[in-house]
């Protein structure tokens, strides 16, 4: 029997992206498309789903240090071994010619590689990037390097306009037309993006996050409405999720209990 399920790889590089976000790069041979995720095992601690922030080689994940496990990630150093399985789930369609990317917090982690590929294929990318404070803006330079136009919003006004990134996005949607809108971030934020785009002809695509255990469509941990985020997502056209009871309102805890998001 060949066991290809999980591959143990050393961490190659560890970079602090912002005060609360780190990027780990590692070599993992499987092909991946932007939007897909991997299950990352930190031996002795936990295994968590992480969208790839770099889909080539070396691959990378960019982690907001929040829970105990993402804190454990912060203690990893180059040479430390982690387990990777996947990639799982679907990907962004990178073919639209003019794309608006709306990222809040660590949402930019999964949007950046998708935008990079689209930009390389000749698409025009506009980014609405939001954070609490200026130093927390994720991948601002990376977006600029790929030739994207970047509009910024911070909660405290320390950079760009003061307020929500969704307001910046709404303004852009009023002023111009786009072929697609991609968004990732808190679900309440994504809901506002969907609402803002309602009057435009641009289809909105969202990347969702849920508790995951199997990542194989078996355990039901990641259920939302009729879907399982691990196999039917994590990337969803807005029209499939906007009407679901849970979207922007409820999440399931590890026990399966439904709690307010």
């Amino acid at each position, binding site marked *: 029997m060949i066991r290809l399920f999980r591959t143990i790889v050393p961490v190659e590089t560890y970079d602090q992206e912002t005060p609360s976000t780190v990027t780990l790069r590692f070599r993992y041979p499987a092909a991946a498309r932007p939007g897909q995720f991997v299950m990352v095992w930190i031996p002795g601690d936990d295994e968590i789903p992480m969208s790839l922030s770099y889909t080539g080689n070396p691959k990378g994940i960019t982690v907001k240090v929040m829970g105990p496990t993402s804190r454990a990630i912060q203690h990893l150093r180059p040479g430390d071994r982690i387990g990777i399985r996947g990639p799982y789930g679907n990907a962004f369609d990178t073919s639209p010619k003019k794309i608006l990317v709306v990222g809040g917090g660590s949402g930019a982690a999964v949007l950046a590689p998708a935008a990079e590929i689209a930009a390389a294929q000749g698409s025009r990318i506009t980014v609405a990037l939001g954070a609490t404070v200026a130093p927390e803006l994720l991948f601002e330079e990376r977006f600029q390097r790929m030739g994207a136009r970047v509009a910024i919003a911070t909660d405290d006004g320390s950079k760009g306009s003061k307020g929500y990134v969704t307001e910046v996005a709404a303004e852009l949607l009023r002023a111009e037309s786009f072929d697609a809108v991609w968004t990732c971030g808190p679900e309440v934020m994504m809901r506002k993006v969907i609402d803002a785009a309602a009057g435009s002809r641009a289809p909105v695509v969202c990347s969702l996050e849920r508790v995951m255990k199997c990542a194989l469509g078996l*355990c039901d941990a990641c259920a939302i409405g009729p879907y399982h985020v691990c196999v039917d997502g994590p990337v969803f056209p807005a029209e499939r999720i906007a009407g679901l009871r849970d979207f922007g309102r409820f999440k399931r805890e590890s026990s399966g209990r439904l709690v307010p998001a």
Partner: protein
Amino acid sequence: MADLSVDLAGVRLRNPFLLASGIWGESGDSLGGAWKAGAGGVITKSIGRLPRPGYPNPTIESLERWGFLNAMGLPNPGIEEYPKEIETARATGATVIGSVFGADAAEFVDVAERMERTGVVALELNLSCPHTEGLGSEIGQDPAEVEAITRAVRERVRVPVIVKITPNTADPVGLARAAERGGAAAISAINTVRALAIDVHLRRPTLSHGLGGLSGPAIKPIGLACVWQIREALTIPIVGVGGVMTAEDALEYVMAGACAVEVGTAVAFEGIGVFGRLVESLGRLLDELGFESVRSAQGAAHGSEARAPMPARRRRPPRSR
């Protein structure tokens, strides 16, 4: 086309393929989805008295085509929260069987009573849970406990009680007999087979819990042997579980003596559409083999096996059919 409907301890099922406990069983939408995909009935996740987060990940390990190793740690939202999921599932018209577990008879009874009130057509007692956290022994390995818990639940509920037994025993027939004595209406056999995987690079088990349970194609022969042995000894209805991927697998269980089967791992291999495909291909298979119904194939393989000349002393209990 052959009649696929079956009777499970007085409950009519439109076909013999039940969604196994622990698969697509956390949300009512998922249970309803399995029903809409064609399952003959759906079994809930095993529910206890209180919410449990389960073990930390990794909780599952793939063994490729052999199946999966899992130690989820019985995550569940608790019986207080769960009824609304069953309500959602039942709104689709689904035939729902409620799976319950407990640390002792009192918890089993408490959860079973509250589960019955949700309108489930039957209960399945998951008697393969750890006795005491961390000790690894299972309540369900002790026939006396199995009998006592079954009886305690049986006395307090009206719906049929199905007892799901563990294969991690030298004597599955003894467990089934104990359940029958306790008043079980049917036996499900089997739950997962105790198993382990080790990562040689890290010199540690891959599952956070260490030991886990094996499911999928690798355990089908084990499940079949349990069903076979139970049918040889007892007349109680049996639900076959373990490694059902195809209609042939299901028919093997039926010919071994099962009246229905549960499907778990196949959902990960093929998606929920597996139910529709199983139903269709079982109909075709029965027609091809000349059976007019699932029922008419039940136990068909018994009595055909070659027997060595009987030794002087009887080696096995007399058949009670």
